[in-house]
């Protein structure tokens, strides 16, 4: 058999190498896209009852895409023991977590008279399985929670409906809350702990040396789920929240979401007349660790912020 000419051997090798690399790239990109958008939910192993709190299991639907979400409704407890829902805070957990993530802080808020609606975001805990949008899809869950508080079948009907709704979002939950508050004026005040300014700043460093797969993963996610993470930019919408107050918290030693994210968010939020923005850079705190590192101060500041910003006429009845 005649030996192939050199040029043909070079082209053959080129075709093999380019084919191998291209298919490897496509396969890895698809695998990453499928893996990052959905992880098995972490089971819930505790309830507010374990902390001596009165609560009810609740279910409601996300706004727009109507996914079934599950959560706890924990009424606030006044100093005289009566229950109240006058000031209610929607607690939004971070990615790959569940409503029990900060249950001890929820309990502290409830004991200070602030009711808490803690729910599992889509694809987490006991809520419907769904792809994570890094906060983009999750904004619909928060809007569904607002609808539930305003018009849904609330437990404790004798307590009436919340007079003022606030939000407290952690990490990706914070990004989702920024999006939700920017379009829902019923959310009167928000606390954002360790949220990213742009999703790219959050996701891209996570790829590390595999950064080459970023465009492939991005394209696959756009194709499969209709979300382009590069266009998820809470920093672009946060100004719409003004004049409603925003309290931004960030760990100074956070390496997942760098403190510069809080600076960017604060600058964008303050860039409109009537903006009301507070920031708190917690020294030595890593990602979403501020509430563990300075727990009492954290609770005090949260309670003070919500009591001040959500204050309305009292509407309480006797509790159990």
């Amino acid at each position, binding site marked *: 058999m005649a030996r192939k000419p050199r040029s043909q051997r070079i*082209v053959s090798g080129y075709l093999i190498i380019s084919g191998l690399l291209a298919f490897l790239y496509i396969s890895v990109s698809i695998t990453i896209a499928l893996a990052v958008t959905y992880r098995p939910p972490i089971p819930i192993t505790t309830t507010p009852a374990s902390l001596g709190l009165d609560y009810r299991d609740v279910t409601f639907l996300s706004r727009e895409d109507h996914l079934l979400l599950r959560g706890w409704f924990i009424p606030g407890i006044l100093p005289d023991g009566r229950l109240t829902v006058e000031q209610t805070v929607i607690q939004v957990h971070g990615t790959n977590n569940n409503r029990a993530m900060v249950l001890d802080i929820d309990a502290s808020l409830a004991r200070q008279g602030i009711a808490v609606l803690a729910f599992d975001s889509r694809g987490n805990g006991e809520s419907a399985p769904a792809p994570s949008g890094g906060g983009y899809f999750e904004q619909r869950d928060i809007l569904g929670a607002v609808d539930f508080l305003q018009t849904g079948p609330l437990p404790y009907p004798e307590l009436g409906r919340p007079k003022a709704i606030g939000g407290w979002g952690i990490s990706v939950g914070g990004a989702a809350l920024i999006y939700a508050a920017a379009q829902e004026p019923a959310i009167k005040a928000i606390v954002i702990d360790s949220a990213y300014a742009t999703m790219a700043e959050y996701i891209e460093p996570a790829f590390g040396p595999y950064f080459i797969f970023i465009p492939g993963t991005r394209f696959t996610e756009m194709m499969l789920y209709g979300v382009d993470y590069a266009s998820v930019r809470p920093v672009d919408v946060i100004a719409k929240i003004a004049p409603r107050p925003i309290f931004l918290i960030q760990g100074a030693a956070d390496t997942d979401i760098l403190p510069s994210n809080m600076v960017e968010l604060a600058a964008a939020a303050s860039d409109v007349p009537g903006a009301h923005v507070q920031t708190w850079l917690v020294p030595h705190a890593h990602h979403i660790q501020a509430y563990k590192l300075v727990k009492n101060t954290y609770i005090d500041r949260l309670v003070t912020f919500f009591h001040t910003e959500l204050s309305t006429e009292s509407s309480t009845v006797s509790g159990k």
Partner: protein
Amino acid sequence: MKRIKSEHENQISKTTVPITVTKNDDRWSIRYILLLTLAPLYLLAIIGGIVLALVMLSRYLISPSNYLLQQTIFILIMSSGVIIAIIVYIISVRHALKYVGMLRQNGYTRQANVGLIALAIVASILILPVILALFFH
């Protein structure tokens, strides 16, 4: 006698085939060579288009509340798409290379070179997104 006839036939084929083929047979035309050697590229594009259409269709038909079913279908579409694409690529490249070799053996060096250039373009276009991903991510 037999041997002489055979040599005579070979001589005829060497002298007449190039002329008659280029004039009458489409298989040696540049257009046909390009169609064959660029086949890996457009076949992959067709497969990619079908995969994209199927994904869009399943996104449209399956409600987001039925996410696990949607995810399973996505995985099936994507994995079978990649496997089919790999098989189609291997077959079409092998076929094109064989054809280029045949052209060269028959003395159609110009056509063979055009075929090789087209195949090199195929390889370059295939690797281009990976190279671009290195610089623009």
